[in-house]
Structures are given as C-alpha cells and as structure tokens.
C-alpha cells in the first residue's frame, strides 16, 4: 500500500488530488446548474493540455507553443466520428450526395474521402485519438530533439507548425469544414449528446479522464523518469553522460503531453458539440501555456485550477466588462511571470500548506508530515541553446 501511495506522488499529492476530485465530482455538480457545469467541463478540457504542459514544460523544460495541434487532432478525430454519425443518409437526404457531411456536399465532394473512412468506427476513432497525436509528437520530437533543438527554438518552430496546420485546415475545407469547423454534432452511437442529462454524463466522464491523466502524471513524476526530467532540466549534459538518451526522454514527455491534449480535444468536441481551426492555432496554444503558468508550471493539480480560474475570470469579466477583460488577462500573464513564477501552486505551498501541516501535526503528533521540497523553476537555458 505504501508503495502504491509513493508510486503515485505520495500522500500529500494524493490528498490534494482527492480534494480536487471531490470539488469536481461532488461540490460543483451540486452547486452549479447544468449551463455553468457544462462551461466548467469545457474549461477542464483545456486543463488536459495544461497538465501535459506541466510535464513537458515545467518538468521537461520543453516549451511547446503548438499544443493546439494535439488538442485539435483529438478534437477533429472525435468530431469526424460524430459528424459521420450525424450525416446518416436519412439526415442528409436533401443533399446531392446523401450520407456525407454537409460541408463536403457544398464543396462538390461526392464520395467520402479515404481520410474519413476510419471514423466510421468508434473503437478505431478512440485508438486514433490516442495514437495520431503520439505519432505526430514522436515525429516532431525525433526531428527536433535528436538534433538538440531546444528551448526558444523549439517553441518558435512548434508555433510555426501550429500556424501551418491552421492554414491547411482552413484551406482544405472540403475535407475539414474549413474555418467553420465541424459543427452540429448530435449523437454518439445513437446516444444524443445534446440534452442536459448527456451533458452531466459527459462532464463526469471528462472529470474522471482528467483525474486519470493526473494520476498518470503523478506516477510519471514519482518514477525515476520524473527525477530524470528534473535532472535533465538542471544538467542536461550530466544526464547524457550518465548513459541516457536525452532525446528519447524528451520525445516521451512531449508525446505524453500530446496525448493528454488530444484527450482534452476529444472531450471538447463531445461537450461543446463542434470543433474548429481556431483551436489549433497559435493564439490558443499560447493561452494553454498561460493556464499552466498561472496554475503553477510545476504542479499538475495547479494546472487544473489555473485552467479553471483563468477561464472563469474570462467568462465573468467579459460579461461585465467586455473592454477590460483582455487587459486583465494581459496583466495577469505579466504578473504571474514577474511576481509568482510558481503560480497558484507556489502561493499555496507558501501560504496555505504550512497551515495545513501545522494543523495536521497538532492533530497527530506521532506522525509528522514531511514537506515535499518545492522545486525552484530555474531555467538555466541560455539564449542560444542549440549546440552545434
């Protein structure tokens, strides 16, 4: 039992995770109506990306400004499946070619493209949601990390890839739905995803998947691999000259973050009911990084709170002060970076956790709680990180 606890991040982390689970699975559903809960569900899909970024940026030191690509891959895979189901010959009888998605019909496509074929099957779709981003991350990772492209360069190149992806999706509208995206998604295996009851179920599914991802994340970080990530950020050469293939370590964490993002994207398509290229591009990708930074780039659970709070603030502020919320967001990013580089999690560690520790210690004097050491977010990366 003790082994299991430490394998998944130790007692303190697991308790924090349990608290999050209670909040998401019990407190919020009981206090919010379905409209707000559905919003929270949408924000949680961003949290998947933020959690992946904690692993790959916070711990692995690999900042990707293209996480939207993976979110989009997951989202589009799911949306394609749902769209095919919504485009049954009966539903699309008025089209010149019934049985294909409406936007294809408008683009004179008379036959379902081969690219869409796999998405007739849910099993295959789920498989693709998990493997396509992993494969894509692997390819990018091999190309970049094996050649020691890192830091700033990696960030800019991933950003460029995200921008290419957006132009491609918008340009190939016959296959992708173009700028409108894939809209009007209705059922999953005959089950209507639009009524409130379905939204509840999807919300809970989303929470459960997120908690699973968090558990996987904590397992990874508690393993020797997690220590390696920290080691690599501190002294990449030392890791390399201890016999590790540094590139492989980075590729794995990048791929893992990609898979998490894709799961988020798929849940997004399910809960929001559409997918569009604006979730693939550069702007949304940077926003995801911000969620992660606000939550605390070294805290998996913090990233979830970060995604929730920033989006909540965005929604509430844009309702009351439409002009101000962008300025507020901008100020938030600057403030977090300048004043709280460890984000919400850092504030929590500094101000809240000591009280909890003291409280617990006074309750059970026999078992003093061991503080986990906060890790400073030092980035030793120099401007020119590429080794020639």
């Amino acid at each position: 039992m003790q082994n299991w606890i430490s394998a998944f991040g130790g007692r303190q982390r697991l308790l924090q995770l349990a608290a999050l689970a209670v909040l998401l699975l019990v407190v919020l559903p009981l206090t919010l109506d379905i409209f707000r809960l559905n919003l929270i569900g949408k924000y949680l899909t961003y949290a998947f990306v933020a959690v992946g970024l904690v692993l790959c940026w916070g711990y692995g030191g690999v900042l990707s400004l293209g996480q939207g690509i993976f979110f989009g891959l997951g989202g589009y895979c799911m949306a394609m499946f749902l769209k095919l189901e919504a485009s049954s010959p009966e539903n699309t009888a008025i089209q010149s070619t019934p049985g294909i998605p409406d936007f294809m019909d408008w683009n004179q496509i008379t036959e379902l493209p081969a690219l869409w074929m796999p998405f007739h099957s849910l099993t295959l779709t789920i498989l693709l949601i998990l493997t396509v981003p992993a494969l894509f991350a692997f390819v990018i990772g091999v190309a970049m990390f094996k050649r020691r492209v890192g830091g700033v360069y990696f960030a800019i190149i991933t950003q460029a890839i995200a921008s290419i992806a957006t132009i491609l999706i918008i340009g190939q509208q016959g296959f992708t739905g173009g700028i409108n995206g894939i809209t009007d998604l209705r059922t999953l295996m005959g089950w209507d995803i639009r009524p409130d009851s379905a939204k509840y179920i999807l919300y809970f599914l989303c929470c459960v998947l997120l908690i699973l991802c968090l558990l996987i994340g904590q397992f990874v970080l508690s393993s020797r691999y997690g220590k390696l990530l920290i080691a690599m950020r501190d002294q990449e050469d030392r890791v390399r000259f201890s016999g590790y293939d540094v590139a492989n370590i980075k590729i794995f964490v990048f791929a893992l973050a990609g898979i998490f993002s894709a799961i988020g994207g798929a849940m997004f398509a399910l809960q929001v009911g559409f997918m569009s290229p604006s979730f693939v591009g550069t702007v949304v990708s940077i926003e995801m990084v911000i969620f992660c930074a606000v939550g605390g780039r070294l805290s998996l659970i913090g990233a979830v709170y970060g995604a929730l709070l920033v989006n909540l603030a965005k929604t509430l502020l844009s309702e009351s002060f439409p002009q101000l919320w962008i300025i507020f967001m901008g100020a938030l990013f600057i403030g977090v970076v300048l004043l709280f580089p460890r984000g919400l999690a850092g504030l929590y560690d500094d101000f809240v956790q000591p009280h909890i520790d003291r409280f617990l210690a006074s309750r059970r004097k026999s078992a003093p709680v061991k503080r986990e050491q906060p890790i400073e977010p030092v980035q030793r990366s120099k401007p020119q990180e590429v080794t020639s």
Partner: protein
Amino acid sequence: MHDSTRKTPAWKRHLLAVALGTGLGFAGAAGAADHPTEKVSTTGLAVNDDTVKVGILHSITGTMAISETGSVEAEKLAIEQINAMGGVLGRKIEVIQEDGASDWPTFAEKSRKLLTQDKVAAVFGCWTSASRKAVLPVFEKENGLLYYPTFYEGLEQSKNVIYTGQEATQQNLAGLDWIAKEKDAKTYYLVGSDYIWPRTSNKIARKHIENVLGGEVIGEEYYPLGNTNFGSLINKIRLKKPDVVYASIVGGSNVAWWKQLKAAGITPERQTIVTISVTEDEVLGIGGENIAGYYSSMKYFQSLENDNNQAFVKAFKARWGEDSVIGDVTQAAYLGPWLWKAAVEKAGSFDVDAVAAASADIELETAPEGYVKVHENHHLWSKLRMGQWKADGQAEVVYESELIEPNPFPEGYQ
C-alpha cells in the same frame, strides 16, 4: 470606448435619435394592457408587463470587433427607436449585451447563456459564418430566435434564424449579369480570402459565368486570412488581363490588396474590379482614394436617396456621431429589431414558435434599403445594387435590380 472621441454629449444624441426614430413613421404600438403577459409569453421567456428582454451578441473584443461594431450600433439604435415609440406589445425592450470575443465557442457559450439563463425573446447577433454555425445548434436546441445580419454563403435555413443579409445567389448573380453586359466581359479572375464564404460565392459565380453568361474563368485563387502581400497576384492579373476581377478578400488583407493595386499602377479605367466584400466600413480603412472607380455588389449603400434611408442615416449619425459610416451589414442589422417587432405584433405573442411562424411574409415598407419582405425560407427578398466608389468613401449606385427571391439552396449552382 470607440465613440468617446465624438463631440455631441450622449444624452443629447440619444434624444435626437429618439425624436428622429419616432419621425420615421412606423406604426404605433398597442398598450401592454391589451396583451396580458400570460397570453403573450407561454414558454417562460423574460417578459413581464413592462419589459421584454432581448440579447445582442457580437464581438466587442478580438479581431472581429472591427466588423461587428457597426451592427451593434445599428441594433441598439433600432431598439431605442422602437422603445421611444412605445416598445413591442406595450413592453419596453431591455437589451442584454454579450461579447463573443471573436471566438466561436464563446459565441456558443454566450448564446446558451442568453437563451437558458436570461431567457431572451430574441437575439440579434453573430457576424461570421463560423460564429453562426457555432450557435445554430444552440438556437435549435433551446428554441431561440436569431436575427443574423451578414451577407453569407447560403446553404442554410433554419426555423430559428432570420437572415437579414443576402445569401450568395442574391448578392452575386444580378451583379454579374450587369457587369457582363455593361463591360461586355468574357473573362473573369476570381480571388478571395481562403475560407468558406469567398469559396462558396466564387463557386456560384463560376457556375453562373460558365453556364449562364457563357464567359470564362481564367483564374481562381485564395490567400490566407491576414495575408498582406498581393504582388504576385497583381502580376498574374496583369499578365492574364481578365475583363473582370471578382474579389472577395476580407479583413486586413483587403486594405493591403487595394493599396497595392493602386501602387502597381492598376486603374479602374484599365481594369474592372467588382468586389463583394467592401462596404462603407471597409472603405474607412482602405481609403476612398485607393478604391475610387471600382464596384461593390451589395444590397445597400449609405448614399441611397430614398426617404427611409435619409432618415436612418440622420438618426444613426445623431446617435453614434457624425463620422459614422453605414455599410450593408449595419443596415441589415438595423432591420433585425424592426422585423422582430413586426412579427411579434403579427403573432400577438413573444413565443419563439409563434414569432417564427409569423415571420414569413412580414413586410417592411420603411427599411432604409427600401421595401423588404421575409420569405418563408426566413431570408429576405431584396434588391441588388452595384455601387461605384468615389474618393470620399461613398458609393454611387449605378445599377439596381428588381426584388430578388432568396434561394439559399440554389439548384444548378452546387
């Protein structure tokens, strides 16, 4: 805010606008007493004895704020005028405004909020096709009513949407007919920003050119949104010398396109260009001197000389400042509240089903663009006008078609 630079104090502008609005001569409203709330609202909409709530949903922030500002202003003006006349079924209209932030899920989210939380009786909003596509399932599921102002690609029809702008056949066909005749045009070059509306419009244009006009399309190409370099395209046009360039370039690209055309020594005398994406709003950014002499194919221009329009322009300027310009979409947005008012009064109810059903055949004699009528497919019968731009940023209407029936699913053009 954007109107802070203008001179007249807000209250004064407001009063003036209201006074002008009443002067427009719309039919007066009956008192609320004749229409008890429990009768006019049976589905739990936000209606009481004194007020009825409606939503305005446009982007105030983000990249689309450029385009959507005019629509917000027009919708607010119409609502203020209606209120000054006594409201709808004796109830004052209260506006709940939400910001779509140029982000489609935000549009979906806000529309759901307007419909399920605020229970608004109607929503005036959306601008891009993508935002409309994002909110459409919400409106259909929550049974809301959306008045959508933009000219768009068609291929859509919904019980829950009234399209006050033109669909693609209305905007393209008559204009092409005219230019083909006027300029004796045989060859056409189609260019556009790379997204759904230019592509669909050009598809319809191409079919019409090839199958009806017997002309030839000698080039068709698309540039990414935000592209600002058109040197190569201009050279291609120069080389192929089409009789007509048919352009649907939008946003920041639009400005670059016209400026670079002018700089490349291309003049309206040497090259006829018809655009379907430039209204008075865009000309503000392009600069009248850069586009003077070229044509826009639209249903409305600010310079229309009928009485309705003159009153409207006057009221709009009084309310939003003398510098305001009014484009096609702004006018279409202005129609929304009036069409809704007429349909509610015809139905005698705010219930969405009743209003939607009553909408067909609603007529508006007083529209700035002239007479309009709602088709049973929820689009408007409207005219197509060809405007030739002048250096002062206004257009001279050089052609006006008959009323055109809206046809969102055109046979033979798909």
